[in-house]
Structures are given as structure tokens and as C-alpha cells.
């Protein structure tokens, strides 16, 4: 298939790329931009490991065409764009400290999901957290320590301990 020129805005930077029209966002991020933090865990949008934020909304990069999220009205955030001023974001820190990440393969997807959750619901209930995380799959943790991590991140945010403040 003939390549086409597209422009993607990822983590605040614009990139001009030549890709086949059938190319998925996940493949373009990983292969063309070397942003390998977003992972491929399945082939049918069932695991959530590829979750990125498109205009702040968690989306599965493995089922979006790269050409469908071009610059003019799409701002893409990947896991590489989450750390703040070179320091870990509160969610990332809490995931490390509370054992929310074991093998770490699903972790970027989870962190993007949690980031979106906390952005529109800064004080989620246990039930809110469970539901928000239910679209992402983890095979290591049994989720319990993730819930603790999310709660710790919320608490850290509230105490103003998040980096940069």
C-alpha cells in the first residue's frame, strides 16, 4: 500500500510521518517514533496494554488508525509523556511503592487509565477504581496492590506531594 504523509502530535511535539493508511496508531508509535512504552498484549483490544490518551480520553492504540488521529484536533499522550519535569508522577511513584507493577508489561496501560480516571474524578470510590481498571488486564498482581497504589496516589495528590508543586 502506498504511504501517506500524516502529522501526529504526541506528548506535546508534532511529528510528520509517512505511513500506510492501514497502519495502526500503536505500530506507528512503537516503530516510527520508538515510543515503545505502549505495549501490544493482544490483537483484539481485549487487554488494554496499549492504552494512550487522545485528548485526555483513554483509547486503545491497537485499534485506531494512525491516520485518524492527526494533529489538527488530536493531542496524544503516551506513557512517555506522563513523568512530570523529569520526576515520577504520583501515580507512577505509588505503583512502584505499592507493588502495583510486577512484570510491568501492563503497567503503562494501567497508568494511562488511572491518569484519565483521576483527571475527571479526583476522589474515586473503591467501586469507581475497580470499574475504571476493568478494561485493563493484569496477570501478575491480582489487582489488590494496584487499588492500594491508586488510593495512595490520590492521597499524595491531595496532600500536594505530587512532583512540581
Amino acid at each position, binding site marked *: 500500500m502506498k504511504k501517506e504523509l500524516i502529522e501526529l502530535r504526541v506528548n506535546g511535539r508534532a511529528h510528520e510521518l509517512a505511513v500506510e493508511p492501514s497502519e495502526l496508531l500503536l505500530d506507528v508509535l512503537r516503530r516510527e517514533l520508538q515510543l515503545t512504552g505502549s505495549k501490544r498484549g493482544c490483537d483484539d483490544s481485549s487487554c488494554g496494554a496499549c492504552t494512550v490518551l487522545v485528548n485526555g480520553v483513554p483509547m486503545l492504540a491497537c485499534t485506531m488508525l494512525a491516520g485518524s488521529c492527526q494533529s489538527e484536533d488530536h493531542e496524544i499522550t503516551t506513557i512517555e509523556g506522563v513523568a512530570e519535569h523529569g520526576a515520577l508522577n504520583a501515580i507512577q511513584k505509588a505503583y512502584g511503592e505499592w507493588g502495583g507493577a*510486577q512484570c510491568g508489561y501492563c503497567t503503562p496501560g494501567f497508568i494511562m487509565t488511572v491518569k484519565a480516571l483521576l483527571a475527571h474524578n479526583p476522589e474515586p470510590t473503591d467501586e469507581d477504581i475497580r470499574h475504571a481498571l476493568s478494561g485493563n488486564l493484569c496477570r501478575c498482581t491480582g489487582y489488590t496492590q494496584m487499588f492500594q497504589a491508586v488510593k495512595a496516589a490520590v492521597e499524595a495528590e491531595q496532600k500536594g506531594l505530587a512532583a512540581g508543586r
Partner: protein
Amino acid sequence: MSQFSVIGKPVALIDSAEKTTGSGKYADDLSLPGMLIGKILHSPLPHARIKRIDSSRALAVEGVVCVVIGEDAPNKYGILPVGHDETALAVDKVRYVGDNIACVCAVSESVAEQALELIEVEYEPLPAYFDPEVSMAADSHLIHEHKSHNIEKEYHHVFGDPDRGFAEADHVAEARFIANEVTHAAMEPHSTLAVFQPDPQTGVNNRLTVWSSTQVPYYLQHKLSIVLEMPMSQIRVIKPLVGGGFGGKSEVIPLEIIAAVAARKAVAPVKITYTREEVFWAHRGRPRTIIDLKTGIKNDGRITAVGGKVIQDGGAYCSYGVVTILYSGALLGALYDIPNIRYDGFRVLTNKPACGAMRGHGTVNVRFAFESQLDELALKIGMDPAEIRRRNLLKPPCITVNGLRVQSYGLPECIEQVVRRSGWEKRRGKLGRGRGLGLGCSHYVSGAANSIIRSDMPHSTVNIKIDRDGGVVVYTGASEIGQGSDTMVAQIVAEGLGCKLGRVKVVAADTDLTPIDIGSYSSRVTFMNGNAALRAAEEVKRQIVFAAAKKMGCAPEDVVMRADVVTRRGGPQPEAIAAALVPKSETTVAGRVEGQILRGSVQQKRKEEGPRDWLSFEEAVVAAIDFHGALSGSGSYAPPPEARGGKHKGAGVGPSPAYSYAAQVAEVSVDEETGQVTVHKVWAAHDCGRALNPVSVEGQVIGSVWMGLGQALQEEMVWKDGLLINPGLLEYRSPSAVESPEVESIIVESIDPEGPFGAKEASEGSLAATIPAIANAIYDAVGVRMHEAPFTPERVLAALRAQNLTSRRVDMTEHVNPTAPARFREHGGSLWHKGRGPARHELDPSRTSVK
């Protein structure tokens, strides 16, 4: 104050930021200039002879560099020395739907996929065997010619006198239990990148480097050397971050060999990454197991004898099968005191993907049967299920009837903890119809005492190097796969050297850099690599202590290394000095570097007046290097001969230097209308010897319970004529965040006499207790005994109906025509079914059985 300054405290994994920022690299994240992508053609037939492979049309596609077939790498290999029955790509025969036939290497994935469809393969279908009991009756068209009746291996063990034991019993229970097949489904699909590089001296292209998602880099190096006919020293295997294993990466998976063979043929780097569907076909999970179990007890609850006949549906290749079937029998032994055991184990070949090792290897399904039957017997004699377990405890230190040495034994405390915390005595049987509590216990090895490759080599070796910068670099072959092994090694070394954790850097699992460690499986890493790391640290410490003693003018025995400070006994408290040092060391890094480390100690000596009271860790290191000329140390570990088990055939599997113990109580409710089982909470106590990193131990225990819960309620590989019906993460239903109950993990520390700081395994032992705990809770809730896992709504409903006698038992598969459907659902970009079901041979037993 705790006697330890590093271990025993919860710490974040030392690679956690790599994982949370996405900067860490897994195998599929790697790429090399000029790299080709490999795609594998899989068999659409479960059993067939390959008559012809024509790849000429595929080769003609622009962008295709080469096509690799079985003849390019015909040497057989297998993880066990007794099971060398695989070739990476089929030679002559395919043995399961999904077996590997050819690999296309092309400039991009889409070109490779396109070319894959142009490879023509002509097959001669053979009768296929899908049911192990049918397969055992076969005497023609065997799956492997040298395995008569398709039996990979059978064992018949008798310990004590089971006949007398059953004769003496007051009650005997006998039943068939079935546990269906489950798979690891680690989040990271298998991936391998291989490249041949020229020998820097001769220019011959004979240096192979492989980056692979593996739990066993050294076994991979070994098998590559067999298949490629290269010396191991020319093969370098590097394990990048691995996204979970659970046993699925604990042996060589075909793509790892294929990538290397392809890289040699293509003369370019080749990367192959499985799709999720291919991961399901690669499998190596827990086999479907049929357990005919018989247990006898006295009226006082004492077990008199256990008899078990176990048939495992092993799939098309040996894999770890011989070990799995032996574990199933051997680990009947070291949990309770059982005086008489009879065990008949059959590992059977069928035309399905090979089963292998999976978390709780070999023990899980038999434990489900045993703990269920023990509950049944307890109810028969009117005894509390917790009490019957207490009556059958081992009295360690002891050697079990089947030759397993037990030293530390935290099971009694595990039972007490879960009984107390769950309110067992007050609540069991009293939660009303539809809700109940159940108890289950389990145990697991802390590494196998006998390596699968028989030799006297140590199972683990660790090197430590410290330079004048005060940085401690640990070289360990242990494979971090998410379980926290790098962190464990760093903690043990830091504790051993009395330095802070941040000083320790871990270089792991790179066969060129790190000494041999046989891999991350059978929960061996903390015990074995941990002991090796501790011994290496002790060797380095001796050298530092010797030099520091001279500096401080005291005897080496009086030197104390703790909290990053070296003092002498009776001198200042290391913690107090460390606290005072912190701000200073941060502001004067530059001065320190120049003054102490680089210019060296001659000038320093001039400045110093008399012996010192204390030294900083860096000063002590510099002193030691000046004194000894270098500072490094090695330690290795091999299990002691006393822990290596008995002498009978098959005695090599089961013995371990130490066993972990677990007890769990599950609270469930059962919807009698739908058969749906909901687990509300699990109390899980685990005896890990000593918790080196409590947050990791809890995470491992919760993860095990959760994986057991999946197998208990919903995970199942569903087969139809050798074709997997659910090869995707949506259809293979592992529990989501919404379905996962609260797990209260309780750490029990029995302090093992041989473990590093007393530690044992934490990652597998708990899994096996969850399934029977849930089964027993279902019985407590609604009074039905579940004999087949997973306890899906259909099965629970069928059991309820049979119990109620309101309608006859419903067998959901009754009258269903088992012949292949005409069309198969295309799943997730499936590459090989093309809408066609497997053609069936006219002699196919499952076809002839259909009227």
C-alpha cells in the same frame, strides 16, 4: 530495633521506575538496523504427514528475504534430556493444530504476512488423538513412533503399605476429579530478536546474540547450541525485561530457535513476536488432569493411606511432562503426614499443543482433588475441616515416606491465622444457604534439589565487583520476570555488606556477563540465587573487614558493617553516623571523589592521625582495594545431598532444600438460579520462611491466589477436535478488576535453617490452595461437591440439579455432534485457519465413535 537494616522492609522493585515510565525495554521493544520481521506458518491439521512444502511463490514477493523450513534446523531438542522430541519447524510430521511449519523473513510484518499465504503445503492427514484415555488405547499412527500407546511416561510408586493402610481405615472415600487445561497467558507475548555478528578477529559471521523473553537464558543457550551445532561460547543470550512468565517461558519456545535459524539464513537480524493467538498455541500450560483419588482415614481423623491414579493430557511433545507427572505424585507427600501412598501416573501424548510447567507445577490439580476429598472425609466423621488438617501435620524435622526432607514447617501457623482472621469457627456453616466458607492448604518447593541436567554444577553462582567509586555491581544469572528477583539479590547483597540498597547495581541474565544460574522456575531464585548472592557478599565483606580492621586498629571479628558505615564493636552506632553523614556527603561529592577515591589513599594516610573510630563505606572499600589490590567475590549454591531425596525411579523430582506452606479460607456465595459462584474474600496465609521484601511477598501471594481463582471459576482452554475454541484474552476469561475479590495476605515466617536469612519461596505455593478452598466453600454454601474445575455456572448448575433431583443431571455436551464444524470463526487476524476446519482421517477415533 530489627537486626536487619535492608531486608524485611517493604521496598519498591529496583526496576519499578523503568516499568512505570515505559522506558524499560522488553524483547519486542528492541530493534536493530536492517532488522527483518519473521512470521510463522502454522499447521491447520492436528496430525498429518507433510508431503511437500513449496515456498517459491512466497520467495518471489518483493521484500521477502528468506523462508525457513524444518530441514534448515533438523536437530531435535527439548527442555528435558529425556524428552528431545521437538524440532523448531516440523520435519516430516505436524502433531497439533498450530505446529510450526515455515517462517518467512521479510522487510516488514505486512510483507511477511502476505508471503505466508503463498506457501503451499501438501499434507497427508493421519488419525488424531484428543482424549488421553482414547490416546492410551492407540496402537497405530502413534504421535511419536518410539512412544507406544502414546504414553510419554508412566510411573508406579508405592511407599509404605497402602493395602494395609486402606484395610485399617474406618472410612474410605473414592472419586474422580478432573481439572481442565489452563494456560499462563502472560501479558507479554513471546518475542525473540536474533543476530549473527562477525567474529571480531576472523570476520567469520559466527557470533550469535539473542534477546529473548525467557525465564531460562542458560537453557536457551544450551538448546541453541544443539540445534545450530555451535559451541555455547559463541552464543550470547540476553534477557531483557520479561513481561511475566508463570512457567510459559521456562523452556525453549519454537520461535526462539526459529529466529536464530532465520537470522543465520537471512544474514540479517530477525525478530519474531507471537500474536496473542500464537501464544495460546505455543501454550506449555497446565495439562487437563484426570485424578482417581482414594483416601482412607481413621475415626480420629488420621490419614491411613492415599492412592492416586493421575492421567495428564500432555499434548504433542514431552516438554516438562515427565517432571509434571512426577511432581503430581511426589508432592502428595510433604504437606501432611501420610504413612502409605500408592501413585500411578500417566503422562499421555495427544494431538494438541504441548503442556509444560505452569505456576505450582504438577501439584495444583492433585491438590484440588486431595483437599476436596479430605473435606469430604472430615464431614463424614463430623470433624471440623481445620481440625482434620491439624491431626495430620508433619513433625519436622523429618523425612516423609517418599523421601522428602522437611525442616521449617509453617503450616500449623498458617492454618491458625486464616481460621482466626476469617472467623472460621463462628461463621462456617452459619452464613445461610447460598453462602459459605472453605479451607484449603498447599505447599511448594523452593527450587528443585536436582537440576534437570544431571551434573554436580552449582545451581546458582553470583559475582560481586566493587570499585573505588563505592558502587557495588552484582552479576547474577537470575532471571527477573516480574517476581522481583533483581531486587531480592540487591537486598541480600546490601544486607550482607551492610551498605545501602541504592549502592547496589544488578547486572542480570546475560550469558556473556553473568555466571550460570539455571533460571527462574520451580520458585528457586530466592533460595538458591539468594544463597549464592549472600555467599558472594560474605566473601567481599571478609576482604573489606580485614582492611578496615587495620585502619581502625581492631580485630577483624570486631568490625561491624551496617547502614553504609563501618565501625568497630563498642564504637559509635553506625546508624547515628549514617544519619549525620547524609547532608555532608551530598554537598561534597566532588571533593570526596578527588580527595579519597582518585588520588588514592597515600595522601589520605598522611592526613590521618592514628586509627579511626569509623569509616564510611567508600573509605573502607578504598582501604580494601589498596590492601588486596582488587575487590571482588563469588558465591555459589548447590542443594545439600541430604535434601536430594530417595533412590527410587523418579525420586529426583519433588525433593527441595525447603518447602513453602500455605493455608487459605475462601468466602463464596452461589446463585442457585444461575450457578454463578462469587468469591467475596480470600484469607491467604503463606509461610515464606522470612519475608525479605514484604510488599513483594504479599504481591506474589495475592497474584497466586488470583491465578488460582481464575482456574477455579472461569479459566479453561476449550478444545474442539484439537482446535482451541478460545485463543484470545476476551474468550480465555481471566478475572478482571471487577471480578477480583479482596485477598488478605498473611505472612508467616518460619525462618528456614538453610534459606538466605531464612527465606523460602513465595510465588507459587499459594496457588494450589485456592481451588480446593473455593470448592469446599461451595460445598459449605449449597452442599454440592464439585469434581471438575473450573466451577463454571454450567457445572455448578448441573451439580445442583443432580443434588435436588428436581430434574435429571444436565450434561451440556450430551447429544452434541462432535464432528468438526464446517467453518471456523476467524479470530483476531488468524493466519492459518482460513475458514476451514481440520480435515479428519477416516480412521480418526473420534470420528469412528460417532454413529
